[in-house]
């Protein structure tokens, strides 16, 4: 191996949290080979973003670098003066931030913000040459009409377009190194794929080195030739991607690989290959469907300018099965679930849940029905009131329906905590003291408090780390069998569908493009959109 482009040695970074210090990076040493893509893999709290920000020295105010040495192309980065370091940023190191929405100034045109890359670094290029070069750069990341993009303001572009503008920005001064901090985590799968393709194209053209910070193993396997695995601020494994993915040395890497159903023996499996051979149970139960939608439509906003959120959707969910509704953001899947829950009224169509005509129900009857259908929300951080104790959160449905006396409720809470595998001592804690996975367990316990027959799972694991996702999905499966529940699962992730669902419907722009038994749809997709999703 030649001399590395970037060498980090013994880097320790701590954050102040209230009165205590959290160590984000604990004497991290690593080397990034020149001219290749290196993926830094880690779950939340592993310190991977802190590492990215330390290299460009853009750490938040409560961070302190305790020790360490960072060398770029054999020379140490200037430590003393911010002014000196500024010459490195932009010129020698480019940075692609995580959140494309907040990362562009909302009141300046794209062109002005791009041109700033040159004016700020004191470029000798005349303005006309700058514009010409930017035009070519924008074409390289896939904009057909660069002049039009440069005239626009950020709010006039989609998230994927903004991220491609940020990629252009990072590469505009032809830096040796570009660090991309989770560049696709805020984007839909298909859009994210385009952004990564753009990064790859530009990187090859300008023969730059890229550090890709990510939590996504599939992404790392596909795009990186080297891999660094971080766990709780320490490097546990580093090496060529081929080797790390086939024979991981460290047990943590091995467990990460196990948690992803899609990476096996160093190879990325297609989703079709991961479909678990599950019998479709209880087909002959002859019971009424738990959920039945016929021709449901819902429009938001005024007649001409509004959006058709749900367009002529019909589906039916059998008792005891898991039905997955799949789609990207803005596809209307969440609106569909809100219609089922009676939180939105459909414009047209019939909605029958557990034999009741939901839109026609009085408030009182709807409340009765909700006893039997409960929800688990996407973000366990937002769905639990931070000011309440877990015991009160879990008991809230019981109190609301005046079920049992204080002591009975207390027993039921303990029983539910046990069901979701949380210790009874947690009853007195508040959500802030729990990890994301533990909070989601609490949310599940609350949903089960009333012994419902139907659970609506709104992206139940998408806010969680891969290893935690696997645990929560396993828990949900266990509970389904034990309590004979029906699941209506909303997700953007076909890999989750492959694991748990018997039926799947794919939604796009308010319409169902395809539905059927999960194994059939995933193995032999009939619609192009499903195929694209499967290929992502």
């Amino acid at each position: 191996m030649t001399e590395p482009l970037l060498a980090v040695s013994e880097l320790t970074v701590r954050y102040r949290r209230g009165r205590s210090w959290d160590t984000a990076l604990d004497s991290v040493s690593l080397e990034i080979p020149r001219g290749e893509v290196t993926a830094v893999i880690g779950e939340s709290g592993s310190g991977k973003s802190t590492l990215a920000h330390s290299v460009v020295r853009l750490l938040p105010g409560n961070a302190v670098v305790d020790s360490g040495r960072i060398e770029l192309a054999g020379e140490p980065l200037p430590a003393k003066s911010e002014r000196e370091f500024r010459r490195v940023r932009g010129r020698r190191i480019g940075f692609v931030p995580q959140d494309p929405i907040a990362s562009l100034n909302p009141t300046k045109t794209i062109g002005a913000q791009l041109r700033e890359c040159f004016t700020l670094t004191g470029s000798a290029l005349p303005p006309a040459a700058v514009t010409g070069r930017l035009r070519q750069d924008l074409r390289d990341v896939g904009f057909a009409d660069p002049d039009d993009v440069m005239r626009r303001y950020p709010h006039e572009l989609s998230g994927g377009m903004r991220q491609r503008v940020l990629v252009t920005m990072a590469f505009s001064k032809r830096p040796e190194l570009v660090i991309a901090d989770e560049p696709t985590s805020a984007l839909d799968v298909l859009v994210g794929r385009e952004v990564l393709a753009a990064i790859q194209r530009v990187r090859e053209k300008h023969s730059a080195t890229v550090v890709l910070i990510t939590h996504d193993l599939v992404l790392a396997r596909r795009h990186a030739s080297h891999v660094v695995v971080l766990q709780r601020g320490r490097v546990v494994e580093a090496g060529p991607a081929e080797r790390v993915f086939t024979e991981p040395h460290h047990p943590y890497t091995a467990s990460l690989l196990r948690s992803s159903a899609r990476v096996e023996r160093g190879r990325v499996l297609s989703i079709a290959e991961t479909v678990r051979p599950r019998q479709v149970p209880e087909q002959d139960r002859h019971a009424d469907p738990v959920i039945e939608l016929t021709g449901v439509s819902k429009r938001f906003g005024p007649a001409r300018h509004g959006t058709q959120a749900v367009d002529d959707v019909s589906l039916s969910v059998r008792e005891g099965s898991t039905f997955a509704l799949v789609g990207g953001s803005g596809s209307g899947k969440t609106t569909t679930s809100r219609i089922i829950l009676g939180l939105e009224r459909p414009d047209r169509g019939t909605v029958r849940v557990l034999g009741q005509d939901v839109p026609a129900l009085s408030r009182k009857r709807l409340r009765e029905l909700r006893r039997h259908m409960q929800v688990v929300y996407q973000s366990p951080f937002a769905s639990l009131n931070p000011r309440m104790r877990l015991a009160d959160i879990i008991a809230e449905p019981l109190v609301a329906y005046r079920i049992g006396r204080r002591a009975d409720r207390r027993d039921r809470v303990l029983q539910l905590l046990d069901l979701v595998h949380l210790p009874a001592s947690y009853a007195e804690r508040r959500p802030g003291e729990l990890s994301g996975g533990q909070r989601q367990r609490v949310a599940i316990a609350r949903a089960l408090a009333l012994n419902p027959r139907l659970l609506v799972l709104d992206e139940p694991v998408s806010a969680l780390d891969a290893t935690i996702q696997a645990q929560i999905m396993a828990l949900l499966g266990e509970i389904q069998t034990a309590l004979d529940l029906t699941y209506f699962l909303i997700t953007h992730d076909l890999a989750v569908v492959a694991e748990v669902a018997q039926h799947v419907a794919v939604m796009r722009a308010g319409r169902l493009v395809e539905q059927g038994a999960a194994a059939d749809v995933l193995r032999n997709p009939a619609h192009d959109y499903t195929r694209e999703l499967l290929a992502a």
Partner: protein
Amino acid sequence: MTTTPAETVARRTRAGGLLRTAGSRLAHAAAVIFIAYSATFFLLFVLPGDAVLARIGTTDTIGSADVSQLNLDELRDEVGLTDDLGTQYLRGLTGLLHGDLGRSLVTEEPVAGMIADVLPSTVTLAAVSLVPAVPLGFLLAVLAVNPRSRLVRAVASLLPSAYVSLPVFWVGLLFIYLFSLTLGWFPSNGSEEPAALVLPATVLALLGAAQFAQVLISSLRAELGASYAAVTAPAKGAGRFTVVCRHCLRNASFPFLAVFGLRVGSLLGGTVVVEMVFSRAGLGRLMVDAVKAVDLTVVLGLVVVLAAVYVVINILVDVGYALLDPRLRRPSGAGAGSTEARP
């Protein structure tokens, strides 16, 4: 309170033409003045009744005149309030549409004329203090976030909140004591000579600057924390000063604009008090005298005029907003997808 003016403007621009926006804004403005007028009318003319009537033109406090011994009809006749309330209200409202605010119950002069006489003095004072207040507020805000020296930042961010905690009439007295009585630099009262304007204008300019700086500092801090200022711009090689001046200052002035109308309203209140401290002629003197003499029509006229000032300032602020903020000028959705290309 339903939506911020900016939201309203944004929605309207999307829905229809600028004309409709302007029309609905004007209707809203008229409604605000109408409600302010009506509420004050009923407050002044209905609720208190005879006890107030008895005090008109006197400077007695409540209860010192024995109501039962007065001939109320005669009094009513004297001040021209014989008609029933509904008729009076309608007459007042019709007058308002013609720019007629009625006549003073005490001096019988037309109220509009009385206000017009003293208005230039107050407007001069307010304008002279507002002009330096805005740049001074911006300067304090930049000093509060930018320099390397922690001391400068701390002082610049503490000064505004300390100054707004001072009673404005007391600051006026302190200035008189220091700069007029002790140092003899400026006259302490009078409305005629320009030098008499210096002290009251300084008191108010500092108040305005402090209030503006408070708003700006908090919105600047919020903008500096946003990813475009905290990550993207520095990653391009921008220094802190560049980030503040070229990116954040403009975005931070939108929240500032939104409260500008309110702030000017409270500055007008301060102007009234300052005029009294420095014994200047103006709306303040007129107002205090009218309240002391229970001159109902003058009080009502002042309310309407100042509500109109507030409304006009807010319309100007809305226009400024719509012109300056591209998110409102060019709402999204229009052809956002046209430049999308599949590589």
